[in-house]
């Protein structure tokens, strides 16, 4: 799978670690923020546009809290982004919401939990079925 990843300054270290984790899981990683000094808005916008253009299958954005990237990403057409802090949500949100991007707060989620969240998220598939009506509604909104 092709995964776009990005971070602001406060998420940079965890982003570098997640790149290794994803490579180890056999995924191709597109680092959209090789520079360390971006804010979460610009980092999020970069990952969003790569996912919107289908250049990546999924995206991951890391800042201190995950709350800012969530607000920014979900304002974009066709983007469904979850702020994730546990493995169950990571799996369920892919299955039910067809989430294309997850946000992780490096100040809240430790490196080991972040590894498990990313692993749960990339290993989960969208369930489709009855969930599609809700996804259609979200995508119509923006």
């Amino acid at each position, binding site marked *: 799978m092709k995964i776009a990843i990005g971070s602001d300054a406060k998420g940079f270290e965890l982003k570098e670690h997640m790149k290794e984790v994803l490579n180890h899981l056999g995924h191709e990683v597109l680092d959209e923020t090789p520079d360390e000094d971006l804010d979460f808005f610009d980092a999020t916008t970069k990952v969003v546009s790569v996912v919107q253009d289908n250049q990546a299958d999924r995206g991951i954005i890391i800042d201190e809290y995950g709350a800012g990237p969530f607000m920014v990403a979900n*304002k974009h057409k066709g983007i469904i982004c979850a702020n994730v802090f546990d493995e169950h949500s990571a799996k369920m949100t892919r299955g039910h919401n067809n989430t294309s991007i997850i946000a992780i707060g490096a100040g809240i989620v430790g490196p080991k939990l972040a590894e498990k969240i990313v692993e749960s998220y990339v290993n989960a598939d969208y369930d489709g079925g009855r969930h599609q009506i809700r996804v259609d509604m979200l995508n119509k909104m923006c």
Partner: protein
Amino acid sequence: MRISIGCDHIVTDEKNYLVSYLEGKGHEVIDNGTYDKERTHYPIYGKKTAEKVVSGEADLGVVVCGTGVGISVSSNKVKGIRSALVGDVETARYAKETLNANVIAMGGRIVGIGLIENIIDEFLETEYQQSEANDRMIERIDALVMNEEQKNDDHYFDEFLEKWENGGYPNE
């Protein structure tokens, strides 16, 4: 304070509890449903709850679904809403203080009721810390291109609901 609240059918009991919790603290609550456990669709309630905040009928919003994701995403897709999906008190504080979040979201199957109470308390009590940097970031978020045609349109999802009624979506 006037609080707009909404949920899907997975967490109706939790939402009903939160309505009484908030009323017990002296808040006026607008309950946007859902009101029972019949299968329904979270964007209906995320949108409705958020619109009450944008219109000024409510000061702030609270939304809950299973993981909190679906209903928070739908609330955030309403122009003027900055929704925060959280699982801890500290993120709720940050989102209000720095980003002036106006909707708080939690997963009723993720966060226990004690922590949910603490998160809501923190969200309601924390004040936005105005600064040039915070104001500027909020302006940038609010300026992102957004759909205005959906605003206060209670029939916005009718095409999908009709398809659902006619068996157009698999019931699994």
